[in-house]
């Protein structure tokens, strides 16, 4: 082999080598370009082929009452939309749609004939209706899922809970105040699709941002219901303009009920007028009238300027201050401080107040929380107004002691009465008990908070004793008495300022009753305000019966046992038995009480045995549970010789 041929072969080998190396380098370069430089773009294209994302409708947290009953709840519903330009036969499409949606064909056609590229045909309809539309398969018409807010209690706590708009945004009340917490994130579902487009391997819903939260309120829906019902009937009966009612737990400051008349149904809020949506318990101020005398008494006793027995001359119902004359409803001579409050004498109140001093009283009013926001977790709370000492005229310095020339919200008044009820502590009122996340964990919890101590517990006790008499027959509010319980409270009837004349109106009043029950360990402070009642306007007549109704129901609901036993139980129960025919579940002839003989208890329940035994004045010993099977002594024994009956019970088989 010659040298030239060898060189040629070597050259060819190099050539092939270079060819392969160049090829390899090209491949590497392309790989680098695809795998590294354009990775993101290409990956996205690929994912688009086999990964599908479904947008889920944004959820919204639930609002519960204190016992976990739903007050506001979101449900998935369907909405029908259309791209009008893509629909070929609009008339036919409109006919088909109108049949499924129960709408007029012309109305649907009008929507479809709109120029815009996207229109809603009908929003928030029942899911099966939406499915029927999807089954029609009209080109250019689509179905999407949305959520709709429902308020199952309708009017219940509507002013407090508020409502949401069409796009799930809170517009009023708790819904607005806590919109950020309740609002769910926009979440989507990522899933792989096969060649046929069927999904497999679905991931968990992906959420952007934080999760939604549920809110638990301090409201008790049963007490709330009764408060609304009693208030509504009080307002209707008095043909009044409006009314508010608050029920507060004095020990904690929790609001148990917050009722406002006029009412509205948040499910169809747009059918009501905006003034009906307003939560008047925090946004409306009024003059508290004679209810202030309770706080005047508290301040005077705390400052030791008077005792409940100190006497003042009430000037026989007429008292001149500067150019003004103050009147009392009834003429009184000399009266004790206690009676001044019980009979609600304005002149007496002025005299007590003068002894206390205007600025000292103002200081106490501020301590009771008047004139500044209570700090409740609600929107639109107002301050109320207490006139500073240097701006007050002589007449202002007199009328404030019976609650004219000062304004307050319902909330301030009920919280202030709570101070007297709970032994002198001003509690911060609140409506949100806790915030819970989706897995049920508590994220935030509101605890009772004492703002300040206003009165010593001894003073609070003394004031309570006086306020108890207000609800007695000689006081101004016997209609507030709840049988079985001791009640304390104060009435108020204040004149309203006429917005046209800027003077006190002669026929526009606010009738107020605020009180608490049971006196010894108050569970409820209840305030009833009736705005502009027609006819008799006294708080003790217009508002007190609603207090009684709400109080009685709520105490039963909270299982508070009656404190006072009726004196003549024997007569009462006997009458009760006569009135109510006994249920003839057990046909015992000798069930009826034969005079002088011990009845047969056998076959009766424990309750009936006790009732019957008591009505005969017997001591009943109970053994076991269920229905009575044996008694000692036996039936028919002469009753005079019997003091104690021993009755054995056995559960029915």
């Amino acid at each position: 082999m010659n040298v030239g041929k060898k060189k040629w072969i070597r050259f060819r080998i190099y050539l092939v080598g270079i060819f392969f190396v160049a090829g390899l380098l090209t491949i590497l370069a392309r790989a680098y370009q695809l795998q590294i430089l354009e990775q993101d773009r290409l990956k996205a294209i690929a994912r688009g082929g086999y990964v599908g994302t479904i947008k889920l409708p944004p959820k919204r947290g639930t609002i519960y009452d204190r016992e976990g009953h739903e007050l506001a709840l979101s449900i998935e519903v369907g909405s029908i939309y259309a791209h009008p330009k893509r629909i070929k036969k609009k008339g036919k499409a409109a006919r088909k749609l109108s049949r499924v949606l129960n709408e007029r064909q012309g109305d649907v056609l009008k929507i479809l004939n709109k120029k815009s590229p996207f229109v809603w045909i009908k929003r928030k309809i029942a899911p099966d209706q939406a499915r029927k539309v999807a089954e029609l398969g009209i080109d250019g018409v689509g179905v999407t899922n949305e959520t709709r807010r429902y308020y199952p209690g309708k009017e219940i706590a509507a002013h407090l809970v508020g409502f949401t708009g069409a796009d799930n945004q809170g517009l009023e009340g708790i819904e607005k105040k806590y919109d950020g917490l309740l609002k769910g994130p926009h979440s989507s579902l990522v899933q792989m699709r096969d060649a046929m487009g069927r999904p497999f391997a679905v991931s968990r819903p992906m959420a952007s941002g934080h999760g939604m939260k549920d809110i638990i309120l301090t409201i008790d829906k049963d007490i709330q219901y009764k408060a609304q019902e009693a208030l509504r009937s009080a307002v209707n009966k008095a043909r009044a303009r409006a009314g508010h009612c608050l029920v507060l737990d004095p020990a904690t400051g929790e609001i148990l009920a917050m009722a406002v008349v006029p009412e509205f149904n948040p499910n169809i809020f747009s059918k009501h007028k905006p003034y009906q949506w307003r939560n008047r318990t925090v946004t409306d101020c009024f003059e508290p009238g004679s209810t202030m005398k309770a706080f005047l008494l508290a301040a005077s006793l705390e400052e030791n300027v008077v005792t409940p027995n100190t006497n003042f001359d009430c000037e026989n119902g007429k008292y001149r201050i500067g150019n003004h004359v103050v009147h009392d409803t009834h003429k009184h001579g000399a009266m004790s401080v206690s009676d001044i409050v019980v009979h609600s004498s304005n002149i007496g109140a002025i005299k007590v107040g003068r002894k206390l001093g205007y600025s000292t009283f103002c200081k106490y009013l501020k301590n009771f929380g008047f004139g500044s926001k209570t700090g409740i977790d609600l929107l639109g709370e107002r301050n109320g107004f207490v006139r500073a000492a240097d701006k007050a005229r002589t007449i202002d310095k007199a009328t404030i002691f019976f609650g004219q020339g000062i304004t307050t919200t319902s909330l301030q008044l009920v919280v202030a009465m709570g101070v007297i009820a709970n032994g002198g502590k001003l509690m911060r009122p609140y409506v949100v008990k806790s915030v819970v996340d989706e897995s049920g964990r508590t994220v935030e919890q509101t605890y009772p908070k004492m703002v300040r101590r206003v009165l010593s517990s001894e003073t609070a006790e003394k004031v309570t004793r006086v306020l108890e008499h207000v609800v007695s027959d000689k006081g101004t509010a016997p209609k507030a008495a709840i049988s079985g319980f001791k009640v304390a409270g104060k009435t108020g009837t204040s004149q309203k300022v006429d917005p046209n004349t800027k003077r006190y109106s002669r026929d526009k009043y606010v009738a107020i009753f605020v009180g608490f029950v049971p006196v010894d360990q108050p569970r409820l402070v209840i305030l009833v305000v009736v705005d502009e009642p027609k006819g008799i306007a006294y708080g003790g007549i217009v508002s007190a019966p609603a207090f009684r109704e709400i109080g009685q129901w709520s105490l039963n609901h909270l299982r508070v046992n009656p404190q006072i036993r009726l004196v003549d139980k024997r007569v009462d129960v006997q009458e009760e038995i006569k009135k109510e025919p006994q249920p003839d579940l057990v046909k015992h002839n000798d069930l009826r009480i034969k005079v002088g003989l011990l009845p047969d208890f056998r076959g009766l329940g424990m309750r009936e045995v006790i009732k019957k035994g008591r009505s005969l004045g017997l001591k009943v010993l109970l053994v076991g549970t269920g229905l009575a099977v044996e008694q000692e002594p036996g039936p028919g024994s002469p009753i005079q010789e019997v003091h104690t009956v021993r009755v054995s019970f056995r559960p029915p088989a």
Partner: protein
Amino acid sequence: MTRRQVFLVIFMLFLFMGSSIGYVWSNFERTQIGYDLSQLKKEEMRLREINRKLRLDLAIQKSTKNLEAIATQKLGLRQPSPEQIIVLP
């Protein structure tokens, strides 16, 4: 080739085939489970939604107004007066 070697080759062949079939089978199974899973997930979401709807229904049924109407009108119950409440020790 000895008998032993033939045996070994056949064994290896079976092993290879077996593992291939096993691989394909597991892959197939995985896909099937994926389909089932997505179906179940859909079912779960559907049931959750039904649950919410039933909760709403229950809340409407349990509203105090409803309960009071049933208790007082249908069953003839009423609020007890204080003397009718007897506290059992």
